[in-house]
């Protein structure tokens, strides 16, 4: 572990922003002003951030329906994200995408994706670009435990091995796909072992521990960048909210959720594990403050922002019939 103070604060800042963003969205959604479906990332922050802190702006990631955390970790603008989620013209996709399709190619974010299993094959495409163009770029595909059962995911893994592509498949195992337990839906208990059988190194890591994720991802990203081919990382963490906002979560009890929040909070665990000689609690508290203020500002601006003009309905597509 060689992270200096600057890097540690930077990583915590991202986790903190994700948390503030999602907690606030949970409240905003209750007002009824957010259109459509949203899926919150709270509880899994250490995965997105632990992985993306190893990436450059020119590296690419593919994401999921639960994409806010990946966006923030990869450097998407908070204001642009919030405005997008509210369906406003200022949004990163000018209101055309929404929560499930936030993208920002300028920071290498290939888009949240509303199709479970959609990202892996797109991500190997980014890896192919890096390999072909010789940019030494790396691609990361984020997929859930549920998405790990899609054939598209397996096909991308095999292709990546065959073509020795610079990619890391991150499987975020949060125990559920919607309301169905991973222990039911994944026939074999071990998702990483399934990936390993495709012929690549595969590791399991505690996804609530930023430091563990960071180290595991560092190795995988370095291997990919050096031309060593793909890796899979199965990271175990929990989502603190329901599958989507509105989920009554009958598949687990409020006590169970409370216990998870108490014992498996990646932000708390970061505080516990971080080197106190480098980083003080006060500094982290300040970051949390700053995150909440930033998100507060983002909500205020997003709410005040204009909806897209109607005639934008017909732009951004090659031709209107």
């Amino acid at each position, binding site marked *: 572990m060689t992270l200096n103070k600057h890097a540690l604060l930077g990583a915590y800042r991202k986790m903190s922003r994700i948390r503030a963003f999602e907690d606030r969205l949970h409240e905003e959604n209750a007002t009824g002003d957010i*259109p*459509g*479906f949203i899926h919150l990332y709270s509880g899994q922050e250490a995965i997105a951030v632990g992985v993306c802190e190893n990436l450059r702006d020119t590296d690419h990631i593919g994401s999921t329906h639960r994409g806010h955390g990946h966006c923030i970790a990869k450097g998407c603008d908070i204001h642009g994200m919030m405005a997008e989620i509210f*369906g*406003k013209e200022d*949004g990163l*996709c000018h*209101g*055309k*995408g*929404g*929560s*499930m*399709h936030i993208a920002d190619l300028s920071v290498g974010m290939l888009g949240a*994706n*509303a*199709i*479970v*299993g959609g990202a892996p094959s797109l991500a190997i495409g980014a890896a192919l670009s890096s390999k072909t163009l010789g940019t030494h770029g790396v691609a990361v595909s984020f997929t859930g435990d*549920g*998405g790990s*059962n*899609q*054939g*598209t995911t397996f096909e991308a893994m095999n292709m990546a091995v065959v073509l020795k592509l610079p990619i890391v498949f991150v499987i975020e195992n949060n*125990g*559920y*796909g*919607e*309301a*169905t*337990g*991973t*222990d*039911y*839906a*994944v*026939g074999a208990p071990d998702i990483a072992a399934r990936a390993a059988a495709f012929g690549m190194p595969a590791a399991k890591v505690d996804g609530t521990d930023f430091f563990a994720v960071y180290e595991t991802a560092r190795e995988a990203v370095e291997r990919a960048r050096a031309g060593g081919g793909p890796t899979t990382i199965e990271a175990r963490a929990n989502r603190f909210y329901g599958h989507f906002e509105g989920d009554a*979560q*009958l*598949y*687990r*009890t409020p006590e*169970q959720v409370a216990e998870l929040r108490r014992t498996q909070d990646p932000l708390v665990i970061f505080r516990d594990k971080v080197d106190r000689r480098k980083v003080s609690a006060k500094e982290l508290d300040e970051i949390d403050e700053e995150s909440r203020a930033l998100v507060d500002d983002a909500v205020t601006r997003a709410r005040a922002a204009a*909806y*897209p003009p*109607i005639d*934008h*309905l*017909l732009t*951004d*597509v090659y*031709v*209107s*019939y």
Partner: protein
Amino acid sequence: MTTSKKTYREAVKEALAQEMRRDATVVQIGEDLRGGHAGTNPELESKKIEAFGGVLGVTKGLWGEFGSDRVIDTPITESAIVGMAAGAALTGLRPVAELMFMDFFGVCYDALYNQAAKFRYMFGGKARTPMVLRGMIGAGFSAAAQHSQSPYHVFASVPGLKVVAPSNAYDAKGLLIQAVRDDDPVVFCEHKTLYDTAAEVPDEPYTIPFGVANYTRQGTDVTVVALSAMVNAANDAADKLAAEGISVEVVDPRTVSPLDEEGILESVAATGRVVIVDESAARCGFGHDVAALIATKALDSLRAPIELVTPPHTPVPFSPVLEKAWLPDAARIETAVRKLVTA
């Protein structure tokens, strides 16, 4: 036969439950039809709690009555769901598979269009594939580009598939029972904005034959052909225009395939003017199919060009203001009708 007020959601559920009671070979296959398998809530199994009952509650209650062997929760694995249903249908079951959102057909279409749909013909008439594929269609929920589509035109273009898209609770129940009893694969499209709409629906099982249009409004000046959620928009337009003295006939084909050609042509022959409202596509959609039907078989009865009201040729935008502009509505239908009668 007693009736009661039921939502579209309840009508679908009742059809499934009654068919499962009648026929032990009917099984449900899909993701989170119950919800809560494995997982960690200790009360689930003992109290027969469903964690989901379908993502919008349509199958709620089925698992409690029929258990895990007939209400089969699966991993997220649509090509195995549809393929398994097709194989099961070939070998003695009557599976009802759920795709959640029909938009997901892209990950599993082969099993439907190259396999299930073709068996009967390709095997020289020696196979039957009695399966139903249920799923949600439609815009209006701000569910964005990958969860708002209505690809029934794609399914209808496949020989061997039957395609149903009911516009109200009564039709939903009768057509779904028909679908389950049918010996061909049937794609059953449920418009997500209709689930909470209600109608008087018989409590007993009943069937509505495929290929029989329903005239939801009778009129003499203009025919409006509309399907699924568009029927409500068409009815609203018709009611509004009636007040202006324009008499509109609304024809709801109910099944995209087979199509009640006569039911449409008869109305057009009488009115001589037709507006086709369709949510499926701005190109090569169901609306174009109906227009072609009329232009090839009833051209002489047309007193004005056909008016086609579809979304623009763009993906479904997320922002509610854009989505509203994207979706055909009563106002656009009225404009089209007025254009025809003043032409």
